[in-house]
């Protein structure tokens, strides 16, 4: 999953040359950044920068925020003045209740990132698992699951989230996990559909039959042969869904079904409280949480669209990487990796990455 934690080579930085699993994973993450160009690259890089900033804010919230999210008095026991304008001790001012807006925004980032990560993990797990099952097993399992997922799809996202949040709030409480589960219910059908469709086509591949011929159990086939090949399109959806999830979370908070104000700072809730302030000319209580939502959603959307641009084979335009031919003299004096084939059949291995990319670029 190309989640926010991918600042590795934002702008076509050094290409990790490592071998083996770790090296391959790094290369996989870096590939969209290397092979994108033009607008796609701009979106990808801008989005990644925004998202990384937000994630850093979330991670270092205790260091960044001068006060707690529910703190209404300073260390000296003195209550904060309400409706303080931005500046001085309170960078973004204070609210009607006397909260420090800057601290609420910073802690809100932590809430948003936590909830969205949790929701993504849950919905990825459930959606991918069920999608694999439905696609691989087929028959009635498939039909029943598709019917359930279509039913979920038919409900408006926010309404579904509200219902789930409402139902869960009795058992789980009004914390981050409830909000995450409510959002999960909204996004599971998307992963289910994508993974199921990919599984249905992948299971007809020869390598799946080869796995059966080897004697692999259905579970082994699903995990080792199908899963790795069907989750290719998931990062794009996951990133775009994350943006959507932020909005759903804020919507829940705004309507009062989300995280309770005593549990954590939440931008949607803050916005809702700020509605009354706008009439009184108090702009700062609404502007900053709103801006935070806009930045994070924009970052995730840009990142998702950028990823889509580079990874979706239907619209991908690959960058033509320059092919550097080695000097004639150096070639004769120092045989490179390409020359050390198999002895029987010369492998196309040594000079592959540049060549393949450029070839694809020509073709498209």
């Amino acid at each position, binding site marked *: 999953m190309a989640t926010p934690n991918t600042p590795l080579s934002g702008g076509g930085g050094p290409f990790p040359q490592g*071998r*083996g699993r770790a090296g391959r994973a790094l290369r996989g993450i870096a590939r969209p950044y290397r092979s994108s160009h033009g607008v796609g690259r701009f979106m990808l890089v801008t989005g990644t920068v925004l998202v990384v900033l937000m994630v850093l804010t979330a991670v270092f919230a205790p260091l960044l925020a001068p006060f707690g999210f529910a703190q209404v008095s300073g260390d000296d026991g003195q209550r904060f003045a309400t409706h303080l304008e931005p500046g001085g001790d309170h960078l973004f001012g204070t609210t009607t209740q006397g909260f420090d807006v800057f601290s609420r925004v910073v802690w809100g980032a932590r809430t948003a990132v936590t909830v969205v990560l949790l929701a993504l993990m849950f919905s990825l797990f459930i959606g991918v698992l069920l999608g694999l099952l439905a696609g691989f097993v087929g028959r009635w399992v498939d039909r029943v699951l598709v019917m359930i997922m279509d039913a979920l799809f038919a409900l408006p996202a926010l309404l579904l989230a509200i219902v789930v949040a409402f139902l869960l709030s009795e058992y789980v409480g009004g914390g981050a996990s409830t909000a995450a589960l409510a959002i999960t219910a909204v996004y599971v059908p998307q992963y289910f559909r994508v993974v199921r469709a990919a599984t249905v086509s992948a299971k007809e591949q020869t*390598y799946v039959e080869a*796995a059966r011929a*080897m*004697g692999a159990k259905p579970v082994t086939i699903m995990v*080792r042969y199908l899963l790795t090949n069907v989750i290719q399109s998931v990062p794009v959806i996951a990133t775009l869904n994350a943006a959507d999830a932020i909005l759903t979370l804020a919507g829940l908070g705004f309507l009062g079904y989300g995280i309770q104000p005593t549990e954590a700072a939440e931008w949607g809730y803050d916005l809702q409280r700020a509605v009354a302030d706008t009439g009184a000319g108090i702009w700062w209580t609404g502007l900053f949480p709103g801006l935070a939502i806009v930045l994070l959603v924009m970052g995730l959307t840009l990142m998702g669209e950028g990823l889509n641009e580079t990874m979706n084979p239907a619209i991908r335009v690959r960058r033509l990487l320059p092919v550097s031919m080695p000097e004639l003299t150096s070639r004769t004096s120092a045989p490179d990796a390409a020359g050390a084939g198999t002895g029987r*059949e010369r*492998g196309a*291995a040594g000079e592959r990455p540049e060549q393949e990319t450029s070839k694809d670029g020509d073709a498209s």
Partner: protein
Amino acid sequence: MPTKPEPSTAVESDARPTLMDIRDLRVHYELRGSALARLLGGGGATVKAVDGVNLALRRGEVLGLVGESGSGKTTLGRALLGLVPATAGHITYGGQDLAELNQRQLRPMRRRLQMVFQDPHAALNPSMDISTAVAHPLRIHGLVGSRAEGRARAAEAIERVGLVPAEQFLDKLPVELSGGQKQRAVIARAIICGPELLVADEPISMLDMSVRAKILELMLELRADLDLTYVYITHDLATAKFFCDRVAIMYMGRIVEIGPTDEIFADPKHPYTQALLRAVPDPDPERQVPRDLPRGEIADAAAPPHGCSFHPRCPYAFEPCGWEARDLRAMFERRWTELGEEVWERESALVGELDEIEGYQEQVRLKVGDRAPELVSLLDEARAHDPDEPLWRGVESIDSDDGTVTVRFRAGVDPALGPAGNIDVACHLHNPELRPK
């Protein structure tokens, strides 16, 4: 009624013990009819992909399954491994009947029965590196304790199939290998568990010419070293001649001829085999052999011809081959193609109902009213035009009464595999009871 082919009666002269015995194996596929037909239980037609195959695989031999596309050779190969369920019949291997085992019971057997696929580019999981892929059968069957041990065994197998040095390939992904290298990796994966039987489904047809012979040589080497038995599925007679000890020629789900490779190539018995051999391109431009290739196309598998499946295309077909109404239509179509539009317009008005003939009918009744004598004379004319047309040998009588012309055909007999020298052949021409004197 068609008679079922009897099990092979030829003396199996070879002393090698039998590895796998296939008796009357059938693999049928139900074609999906319309939703209504399925509701009413009528369903669609049945395609008999494999229709009563008898075969004894001997240990250590290379058996070639040769046939056109759609002859059922691939389905037969997969059925031997239990990859497609048998509809009926028995596959006896190691004291067990594979046709009766379910997938769970088959899984442990898969160590000994392996497969090499046609398309090496698709046969390897694109997201699994070579060492993991090759060692995976070992891990599936619990034959190695650790990942490192599996990797070592994979390296061994990879070197065994000629990917040297193994270190260069172990960590590669399939996309980084050429077609020949991938096929070697597939073979390495197939032999790593020490199988007895390897079904190779056109293993070289997707490879470059330059590597084909090397892959076949490799497979022969492996057979000698590892005591393997091959079932080699191909449509390429040249490689079958080079590679196989015995060849089974398949046509429409049945084995029509089986015997030692040399003898089949030197003296093919079945008209279909003869036609196949004539169809092999000859690189010598001086030797322009007249090639009377089988006419028409391979028949519809959902409605195979009556009697011998090959009789509509066979130049030597005679009385008992299974003549039926459809053949009359085919005869007229050929005639009209030959004689042109004018004849077609004139005659098709007379015999127009032929389009409705489907399935097996041993007689065809043409209602033509007072033009019956005209039609009878047309049939006579067609016969006189092309007296060598095998169809006429199968026509028993042409009667006309009361405005209806009835063409009766002789009863057809299903040819069974019977001995003709060292070869078993399913053709009435070689059946001493039916053979024309």
